[in-house]
């Protein structure tokens, strides 16, 4: 989706505001949202790609107007309803509906600690063949899907070189919509700054993006 989250290359966002000795959380509620969010994700009703897409679906003005953890809070409120973990009325009253079925045991601290170490599924499945190889010239596809994608607009249609094959990963464009994992290879693709931004860019500089097979075509 060509959403406002896809920020790479915008120029009117002002200077970077660096806060000295920044706390991890700026208010206690931010930490609670973080914990709630991680706990909910462990339940497994939605995956990380679906969660990211839900953030992307925030109306643009909200996206820019909210702080980072305000976005998380809004999206978690939306996702618990969307996936049937709570009803809008329950959210409204902050109390379970009478007769509401209690979940299977909630994630305990011990299990949470263990699962934190578990990452995103990937594999080196030899049955999933790479479509490209290191050193090859490729072009990022010019595509504008209306759903979730991890191919930023600024790279579409641009030519680059594959520098690494990272192995096999789930395809976010389908996984975010529960349309299958569509495992495929992900590569590091090097684009020169001039290819991306034109002749005023430094001749030496480059941007590396990680790209799935389905984002690429032979150049």
């Amino acid at each position: 989706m060509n959403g406002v989250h896809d920020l790479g290359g915008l120029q009117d966002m002002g200077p970077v505001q660096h806060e000295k000795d920044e706390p991890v959380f700026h208010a206690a509620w931010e930490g609670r949202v973080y914990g709630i969010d991680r706990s909910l994700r462990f339940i497994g009703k939605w995956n990380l790609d679906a969660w990211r897409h839900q953030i992307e679906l925030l109306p643009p003005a909200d996206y820019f107007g909210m702080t980072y953890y305000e976005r998380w809070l809004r999206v978690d409120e939306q996702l618990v309803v969307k996936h049937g973990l709570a009803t809008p009325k329950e959210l409204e009253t902050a109390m379970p509906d009478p007769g509401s079925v209690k979940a299977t045991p909630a994630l305990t601290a011990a299990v949470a600690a263990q699962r934190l170490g578990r990452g995103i599924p990937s594999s080196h499945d030899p049955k999933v063949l790479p479509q490209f190889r290191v050193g090859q010239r490729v072009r990022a596809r010019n595509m504008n899907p209306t759903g979730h994608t991890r191919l930023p607009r600024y790279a579409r249609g641009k030519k680059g070189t594959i520098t690494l094959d990272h192995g096999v990963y789930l395809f976010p464009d389908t996984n975010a919509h529960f349309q299958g994992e569509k495992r495929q290879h992900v590569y590091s693709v090097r684009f020169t700054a001039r290819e991306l931004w034109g002749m005023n860019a430094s001749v030496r500089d480059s941007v590396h993006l990680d790209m799935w097979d389905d984002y690429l075509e032979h150049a």
Partner: protein
Amino acid sequence: MDTTRRGFLAVAGATMAGDGAHAQDHDHGDHAHQAVPSDPTLRVKALESLLVEKGLVDRAALDLLVDRFEHKVGPRDGARVVARAWVDPAYKKRLLTDAPAAIAELGYTAGQGEHMLVVENSPKVHNLIVCTLCSCYPWAVLGLPPVWYKSTAYRSRAVIDPRGVLREFGTQLDEDVEVRVWDSTAELRYIVLPERPAGTDNLSEAELAELVTRDAMVGVSQVLPLGEKA
């Protein structure tokens, strides 16, 4: 009992303000009051309370997750990894070829499930990490990202104007240095291995780790020699 959201929020607010007088302020209406928690505070409290009641979320697990990221995982972990790589060439080699395994060697097992890549700075190459689409960050060794890393300013400009962003962080690079920006668009998480500053030959590994900053491991700054402050 008032079972509306407003009712819950008012009660929660009063409880958190810890003082009956503030509950009355709520009844008076909308004017802002310093001691009244902001809207997110109340919404989070409501959400947490509901999810705990429904057995979906365990308060002890929340406490653990918050504590882990507020007090345990953080840039000190990454700094130890960098310092080890500076003093131990064999370790550095392992770190650059299999980062998760090398990081786990130092006991940081949170990263074992993460796909991490360490990119090395040199006199001719400077690396910079960004996530233009969201906020992907090597949390397993640096903890949660700072606000600036997640800001629209950083995410938009790091790829098109990396040298300008670096200058804002006080990092001046010569024209002949190559800037390599890594946009974390997939599940790979990047960490910069900064250059070891000159004049640190006599420092111990622990002293070296003290020099390594979070910002240097993201690539917006360099590691300064002892006594120099950014």
